[in-house]
């Protein structure tokens, strides 16, 4: 399983803050995870944003970062703290 998390505006648009995605060998990178989500339909296109940020196991990463079974993967808009 991949533990998916969504934050802020993405969570609002997607109507969920977390879900589990069954893992399979074709999920090699965060880009593969995102592609599965984008294929679900219109609301999910929010994840196609150029400035999307992502994290693997609670560390910032990029879409080419590898994923393995059991990882926690988060997608979120650019951060606005401070």
């Amino acid at each position, binding site marked *: 399983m991949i533990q998916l998390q969504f934050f802020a505006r993405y969570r609002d648009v997607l109507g969920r803050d977390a879900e589990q995605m069954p893992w399979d060998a074709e999920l090699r990178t965060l880009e593969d995870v995102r592609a599965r989500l984008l294929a679900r339909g219109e609301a999910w296109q929010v994840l196609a944003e150029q400035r999307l940020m992502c994290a693997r196991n609670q560390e910032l990463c990029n879409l080419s970062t590898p994923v393995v079974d059991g990882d926690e993967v*988060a997608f979120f808009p650019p951060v606005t703290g401070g």
Partner: protein
Amino acid sequence: MRIDVQTASFDPGELLNQLHADHRGTGAVVGFVGYVRDFNDGDPVSGMWLEHYPGMTEKALADIVEQAQARWLLHEVHVLHRVGQLEPGEPIVFVGVASAHRQAAFEANTFIMDYLKTRAPFWKRESTPQGERWVDAKHSDEQALSRWQSPGESS
């Protein structure tokens, strides 16, 4: 290093004094306090909600402080960021840096704030007369990082 992510407010003066209390070799303490404004992007703001990524937030802040400690000789660093509901005029964030001399303290403080604004997982949602809206990230915040990076480096 001290990292706090909390809903409770804080007294910046008290935090500044604590940074000096345990280090008699400290000659400089630089503190930054960020506050909620009552105005943003041309609209009055009546309140703000701060969301974060529990677990990652603390790690991201500690990582930023470690990077600062690797660049400057610092005696103590305290980063405090509030989450939850905030009102205009309330303090949101405190970054305090103690060092022997002022230059390291000023620079490290700016470095930590620049990275906090662009790398720590916090998101602001503000209340305006038109309703609630997520605050957009500013390109200028991302550009501010370039002063700390050598050519070709992107993170």
